[in-house]
């Protein structure tokens, strides 16, 4: 079983109300060093077997046609999930 990770972000010129809400709230907790926050979406697509080039190509097409709207969003990356993506590895990083 393999996973493909797709990251989508609002284009930089599009206002991000969710990110702004977070940005306004952070200083209340003492986090005053962050000047901006932008919030994106991560999709994890699971396949049976290995993540082949064909699987990645299909994921890229899905990302462009449905997972993102090119008018307002960019597909930042489409990649096979690496061992570093597991939560335990992230917490150690």
């Amino acid at each position: 079983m393999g996973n493909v990770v797709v990251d989508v972000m609002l284009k930089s010129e599009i206002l991000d109300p969710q990110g702004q809400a977070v940005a306004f709230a952070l200083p209340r907790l003492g986090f005053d060093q962050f000047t901006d926050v932008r919030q994106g979406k991560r999709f994890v697509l699971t396949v049976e077997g290995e993540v082949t080039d064909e699987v990645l190509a299909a994921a890229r097409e899905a990302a462009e046609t449905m997972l993102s709207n090119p008018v307002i969003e960019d597909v930042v990356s489409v990649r096979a999930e690496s061992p570093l993506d597991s939560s335990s590895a992230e917490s150690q990083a």
Partner: protein
Amino acid sequence: MRIGVVTFPGSLDDHDARRAVRIAGGEPVTLWHGDDSLHDVDAVVLPGGFSYGDYLRAGAIARFAPVMSALVPAAKGGLPVLGICNGFQILCESHLLPGAMIQNDHRTFICRDQPLRVENATTAWTSDFQLGQEITIVLKNQDGQYVADEPTLDRLEGEGRVTFRYVVEAGGRNPNGSYRDIAGITNERGNVVGLMPHPEHAVEAGYGPSLDGLTFFTSALKSVVNA
């Protein structure tokens, strides 16, 4: 004159839209998201609501519903289509109209009577209005901020395709942050119109702020007769 109203999972205003069609003198026809036929209707309304829970993006999943595989080519062929609120979002996601809708800039849901200015009185859904006429109908949405890149906005304005603009007091702001105060737009041919506010809630005395919504539906009935 048969005007279809599509029901998606999560549609809210399909009943009111059918009622508006009936009050305007048309025959409302219930269309189903999972049915890839338009059943020979003369026009279609995509109603407001939260199709598929607005998951992914508002209108993004509805765009791929079976009924849309029939609607998109029909709309490109000239069938009058009105997208209201979530229906407008679906039309943008389907690329029948340019641009996209994102969350209101103030991040809160809005529900109020909203004055609009008619900026194009030649479309299938606005021909009974006067150019420049001010109307008041209900606005209620979460993701109502219309956005598009500058060349697209310039093209819409240059081609007279901005159909409705929010009426904004001097020094004031429009209700959701929409670029250039745009409340509704049309396609090149003028048969597809999308807008955020809700004409179907302003068709009957005693309910809603006016009867201005009725004019959308009477315009469509005339455009079908004249087609």
